[in-house]
Structure formats: C-alpha cells, structure tokens
C-alpha cells in the first residue's frame, strides 16, 4: 500500500496499535506491519515524529523505559487518546459502510 494513502490514516493506525498496551517505537512499527501482513509500507522514520505529535495532542503519554535491556521511549494511550480512537473507529465503520454499499457490487 502506498505511503501517501496511509498518511491520512497514520494517526488512527498508531492509536489502534497502542490500544490497551504500552510499546516503544520499533514495536509499534512491527505491530503495524504484522497487523497489515506487511502491506503498510511507509518510511519507518516518519512514525517517530508522528508519535511525538500525538503526544503533544494529548492522545499519548511517553517515558524512557528499559525494555529488553535497552533504554527505549515507550508510548501509551491517554484517556483522550482512547476517546479519539473510539471516534476514529466509529467514523471508519460509517465510512466503509457507505462506500462499501456503493462499490460492493450490487446493481440495484
């Protein structure tokens, strides 16, 4: 999948990956690739500034932790982030229902 088409959804994808867990940057990238079966192809370096922006927005909280023997910055969802994720999910379901209804192949 092209990076340009992902950029608009990157925030929601990052929030979804962090739902209910605390992860460091590379683990977030791995989780994105795993959940998409490797279809999400974007420069991994763009993820880190996006995480910082989501933190500034109040959706994520971060801290330096020692994970697997190395110091890593880990991120988790805040309460605002959980609300934003729920709103993104509802919006996405409505969007796919509408578009799916039209593109879904019915000729009625």
């Amino acid at each position: 999948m092209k990076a340009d088409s992902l950029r608009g959804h990157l925030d929601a994808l990052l929030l979804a990956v962090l739902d209910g867990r605390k992860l460091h940057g590379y683990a977030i990238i791995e989780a994105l690739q795993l959940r998409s079966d490797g279809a999400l192809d974007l420069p991994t370096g763009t993820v880190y500034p996006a995480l910082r922006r989501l933190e500034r927005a109040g959706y994520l909280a971060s801290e330096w932790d020692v994970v697997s023997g190395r110091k890593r910055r880990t991120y988790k969802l805040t309460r605002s982030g959980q609300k934003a994720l729920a709103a993104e999910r509802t919006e996405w379901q409505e969007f796919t229902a509408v578009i799916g209804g039209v593109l879904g192949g019915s000729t009625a």
Partner: protein
Amino acid sequence: MSAIDGYLGDLDSRMIGPARAKADLLAEARGGLIDAADAYLACGVDEAEAERRAVADFGPADLIARDYQAELGLRRDIRVLWELIVGVPLLLLAWDLARGFAEWSRLGAPPSWYHRAIGTADTLAALSPAVAVAGLLAARLLSRRTAGPPVARAVSWSLAAAVGSNLVAVVTYGGATGLLEPARLLVSVPCAVLSGVWILFSMRLTIAARSFGRTTA
C-alpha cells in the same frame, strides 16, 4: 563509521534546535534503527547489510529530517511560551511585592498620563502570558487535526504576539518612568534589580522567538 552512525550524523547536521530535545529525538531514532538492524540480523543477514537495510527502511535523510525539524522547531517555540507563562507573572508579582518596600511618598504624585501609560503596560504584561496559554491550547487542538505548517504557524504567531506584548509593556514601564523623572527608576534597589532582570528576560525571549517568520513563511 557504521551506516547507522553515518545516517544519524546526517540527520543531526540537518536539524537546528534545543540541544536536549534534539538529543532526545536522535536517541529514539538510534534505538529504532538498532532494533530494525537486530531484526535483520536475526534473519541471518550480516551486520553491515542489516544496518544498511534498517537505514533504507527509515527513509531518505532529507525527507525524515524535515519531519524531525518541524517537531524540534515546535518544541523550541513551546518551551519559550512556557518560559513566558511562568516568568512574566512571577516578575509582575515580585515587582508588586518590591514596590511595597520603596519610599514612594517622598516623590510627588505623578500626572494622569503616567497612570494611563502604566495602566496600559500592566494590561499588556498581563495579556502576554494569556496569549501564550492560548498558543499552547491552539497547538494541542491543532495537533489533533493536522500535522506540520498550521500548528507551527499558530504557535509562531502566538509566540510573536506574547513576546511583543511583553516587550512593549517593559518599554512602556521604563520609557514612561524615564520621561517623568529618571531618578524614579533607581528609587528602590529591589525594583531597579527586578527591572533589570525583566529587561534581560525580555531580550532572551525576543532572541528565542527569532524563528518567527521562518516557520510562518
């Protein structure tokens, strides 16, 4: 030099901003690159090739540095806004406290224009941290909707307005008092010291806010 070190050196040279924030961003990038290289190593690739692939996955340095620089510039501006939010009210408070110990009674009553000038300066000084708070709120809310220029513009504009408001207040305090009677500037040692501190603080804020125009262009 390893591929990761070379790449990080390239990123570093393309970024300008507060040293600590820059080191923090680069440390996280290094961690991510090492993790990626480790993952390739675990697949049986040799170390040099693992690092080369990790760097390639991270993205072209010029493209990535643009995102990092935007983040760094915002952090710098937000830090200056916080300095202003804390510093100006503290100086106002300290000035009010210090004024109580001065022997103002031996000076004549100032004319009405002087009261008006000081009243205007008081309003501007109080407005300055309020504008800075509005800038921080705008940064938070805009960061939820968009990335890049709109957030940087909002922060830069509020920074310029807040720093400008404080600067005009300081110039008005000093200018009006100097015009009325220069000796008043030195009638109280604590007040004179605080005035000096405020002038230096304002100069520091003005220099720190010099990025205005670059980020709004």
